[in-house]
């Protein structure tokens, strides 16, 4: 269905929801609907963090608690108006969320899940313990309804407020996910190395996701407090946090509408199964298990698959998004290549010496190859230049500045792009989106302007899209732009990865065995591509086994063997060097025998 039809349907749905209370509303139903809307807010935030970002947080219930208590205490004990109290709630929850996020940066995912669980329990305990502040087990009673322009909000008004907040949240979230932040977050989840190589600071993106989801939880807590008028520690058990995870997973983690579907099902089911009240938790646990095993993409995922099958069965054509056309055939701008200088670099892994004092120089704008037998340390060297491994000794200068000790994403932002031995794609995203990831460091829009789709953000996004389309064309993948990157054959994934690196306008491009596994035809194309990149002015360092390719496109070569430089110079010099011939090519004479 076209986006026009979709928008129309969504508007119609919104209208129905706003008007529904006049037809079927009772106090109790409004109560439940408002509560469900509050849950959706949290779930949307948690979906950002968990569904898209892959971080399992079992502590969001505690963040809702903080928001709810902030509003309750501020309005009951200190007579604040609701609106500044709600802002306080969001700030408090964001602050605690940021603190909760800190361990995530040093510890792995499941450690983090347990720590957030512990957090939730500790907050729950403190809520009861700090009786003077929180009124203990009895809780804060009598939270007043918000007042807007002198008019006290009724249950109906509250429902409308909640509904409006939901719509705004979903809209903002859709915008954020479609922007560079959404891609970077998926990178964090599916391939952190790829994201880092594209200049994404994993720490920053995770923190962004945390703070946004925490703020939404806080806002939800504010809504919760005025709707229930009573806020007690019992509202916020550890189970509460797990509920949100369940809603996200049930609906479909990583799907925009997942949280909505999940919350609706989650709320409707107990109402229908009221008789099984005491079995409720057991049913939820079983549902969660079942889902994770058989439908990891939740209800929305299952619906998507079902919809595809239905379309096929009905004979409807597959939906093709509009083709990606490079906006103009203008030539790509030249690049100011960076020079690379490696001096005496050493690296040991336990007892094994990977690099024993390697030095090489690459002049700006030239194409240089590093060759050598397997295990000679080529990839290790690349990893150290791009910052993924720390150096034991020596220096590395890019464009005359040292990159030793810098985080890999920082080095990427200095204009160093790279590809990997095994292409690192984000399989769930389209080829085009993967390539757009490469534009991350070039774009400047803030998360806020992305969320609100401000004109400056839209302009930037259009420019990046044009760039990406151009490079897509450049590597010859324009016709596969909208396919899932995971579906691409190996050789084309490599090309896509190169395009991704190019979108970032690298001044030094590191290619790790780009020719491995390519057919002869693809090899030719690769050669042309690298030559074209070189002509743009980019400095290219390529690790390769295909010596013919190397001889054709490189102006200089370094040969490594067992972590030391064996020979260095032009291809002709190096490949006729007797030691190189003996050590590397062995008894097999001639250039062009692949040994990948």
């Amino acid at each position: 269905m076209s986006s026009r039809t979709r928008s129309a349907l969504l508007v119609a749905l919104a209208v129905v929801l706003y008007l529904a209370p006049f037809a079927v509303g009772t106090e109790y139903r409004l109560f439940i609907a408002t509560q469900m809307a509050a849950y959706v807010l949290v779930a949307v935030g948690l979906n950002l963090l968990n569904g898209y970002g892959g971080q399992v947080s079992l502590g969001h219930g505690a963040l809702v608690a903080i928001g709810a208590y902030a509003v309750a205490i501020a309005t009951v004990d200190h007579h604040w108006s609701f609106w500044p109290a709600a802002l306080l709630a969001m700030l408090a929850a964001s602050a605690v969320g940021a603190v909760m996020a800190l361990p995530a940066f040093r510890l792995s995912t499941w450690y983090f899940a347990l720590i957030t669980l512990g957090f939730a329990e500790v907050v729950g305990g403190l809520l009861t313990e700090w009786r003077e502040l929180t009124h203990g087990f009895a809780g804060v009673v009598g939270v007043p309804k918000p007042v807007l322009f002198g008019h006290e909000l009724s249950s109906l008004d509250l429902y409308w407020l909640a509904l409006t907040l939901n719509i705004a949240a979903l809209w903002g979230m859709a915008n954020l996910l479609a922007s560079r932040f959404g891609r970077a977050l998926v990178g964090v989840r599916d391939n952190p190395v790829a994201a880092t190589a594209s200049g994404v600071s994993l720490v920053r993106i995770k923190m962004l996701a945390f703070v946004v989801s925490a703020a939404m939880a806080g806002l939800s807590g504010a809504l919760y407090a005025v709707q229930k008028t009573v806020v007690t520690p019992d509202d916020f058990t550890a189970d509460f946090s797990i509920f949100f995870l369940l809603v996200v997973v049930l609906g479909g983690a990583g799907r925009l509408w997942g949280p909505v579907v999940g919350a609706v099902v989650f709320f409707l089911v107990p109402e229908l199964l009221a008789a099984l009240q005491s079995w409720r938790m057991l049913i939820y646990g079983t549902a969660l298990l079942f889902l994770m095993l058989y439908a990891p993409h939740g209800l929305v995922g299952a619906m998507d698959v079902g919809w595809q099958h239905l379309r096929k069965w009905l004979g409807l054509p597959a939906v093709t998004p509009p083709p990606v056309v490079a906006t103009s055939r203008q030539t790509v701008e030249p690049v100011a290549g960076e020079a690379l200088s490696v001096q005496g670099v050493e690296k040991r892994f336990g007892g094994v010496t990977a690099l024993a004092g390697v030095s090489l120089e690459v002049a700006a704008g030239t194409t240089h190859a590093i060759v050598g037998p397997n295990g000679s340390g080529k990839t290790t060297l690349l990893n150290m230049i791009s910052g993924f491994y720390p150096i034991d000794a020596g220096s590395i200068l890019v464009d005359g500045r040292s990159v030793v000790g810098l985080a890999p994403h920082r080095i990427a932002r200095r204009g160093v792009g790279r590809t990997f031995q095994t292409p690192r794609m984000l399989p769930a995203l389209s080829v085009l989106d993967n390539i757009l990831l490469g534009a991350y460091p070039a774009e400047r829009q803030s998360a806020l302007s992305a969320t609100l789709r401000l004109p400056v953000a839209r302009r930037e996004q259009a420019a990046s899209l044009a760039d990406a389309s151009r490079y897509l064309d450049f590597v010859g993948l324009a016709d596969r732009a909208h396919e899932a990157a995971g579906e691409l054959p190996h050789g084309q994934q490599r090309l896509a990865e190169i395009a991704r690196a190019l979108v970032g306008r690298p001044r030094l491009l590191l290619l790790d065995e780009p020719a491995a596994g390519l057919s002869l035809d693809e090899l030719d194309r690769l050669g042309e591509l690298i030559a074209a990149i070189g002509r743009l002015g980019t400095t290219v360092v390529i690790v390769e086994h295909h010596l013919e390719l190397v001889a054709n496109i490189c102006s200089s070569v370094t040969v490594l063997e067992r972590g030391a430089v064996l020979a260095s110079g032009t291809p002709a010099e190096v490949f006729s060097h007797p030691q190189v011939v003996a050590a590397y090519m062995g008894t097999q004479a001639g250039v062009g025998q692949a040994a990948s």
Partner: protein
Amino acid sequence: MTNSRKPPFGLQRDGSIDRRDFLRTAGRLGVGAFGLSSLGLASAANAADPFNIGWIRPTTGRLASSFSYLYIGGLIAIEEINAAGGIMGRPIARIEEDDEASPAKEPAIVKKLQGSGVNFIAGPTGSSQSLSSVATTTPGKIIQATYANGAELGDGVKYPYHYQCTFNTNQQGEIAVRYLVENQKLKKIGILQENTAFGEQATAASRATLKKLGLEPVKVEVYPLTAPDLNSYVGNLRKAGLDGLICWIASVPAAAMAFNAMNSQKWYPPITGHNGLFLDALFELVPPEAIAHVYGTMYRSLMWSDTTSPGERQKAFAKKVEGFYPEGKGSGVPVANSPYYDFLHVLKMVIEGEKSFEPEKVKKALDSVKGYKGLLGTINFTPENHTAIGIEDIALASVSSGKDPRAMGIFREMAK
């Protein structure tokens, strides 16, 4: 069994209540054996509109085993009233909701009951739970009696529609302290308190009384309901060197844990406190010297002494309780202390006096109830004071006397 109730006053109806209530009755997980007769439906001959009362009672959750059977007094009252023709010819019918003894669940339950046109509610149990509930029933103008001792709930100005048909924490605190200080001549008093509204208010009342007597508590330990054991709390109290201990404990497991802790630390101080201490399971759990000097607050009407004994009305009641509750989980005293028996009988009296079920009229009439001789004590209400019982009607009784055959399950011997 079909249920032909119609909600009164023609209000919009959910419909699902009937089905749900039926299913809940059918699927009840036997915490106490309630017969279906306890639904209180009138016999087939009487086709009058039933009078619906909300019944908020925990059947699931951590505190269900401590609270769920405390409504038996109410069931007995309903049976008696319906057998006599109901209220103004209308039989009482209960619309029951499970609040899981969680303050968090109360607002939604009240809204649900409101939606079914209910104007009178019995329950919930527990001061924290009740405070949460009255926050919604008060603006909803619903007449309510809860099983909660927190003195705040007797405030007729703050909660004009709530009637506390039990003694309150002010009275309990007074009695518990005075016994230890004046009767037993002890000076160093400590308090073990559950972290709930009941516990807070009871401790506050104890402190106030101690102050009047020129004393301060030597140590106050507050434990959360989720505490896995009470060893450290009891240990802290013991090390403070107390002569006497006051225990504001209202849940069965906590009472057991407290005495276990005292037993393993071999510390047997004299104890006064809440009627949650009247736990017959203690007889198996700890040696006799542990409970030789333990006393809880109770109604005089349910006590015997060397010179007095409970009346015939109370003895008949004891037999009825046994009929409803044969397994005798050994919490007969809290069961008997239930406010619902007297509340429902007073309600009947007031409604038939006013010839109206309208809440405002009923409230006015309730506010002027004077000298009503209830089962448990004399009931008086004023517009400002909604605590029914006066301090003269309560006293301390010994826990260990539960073994005496005169106990008949619910009586105890007055403290000497």
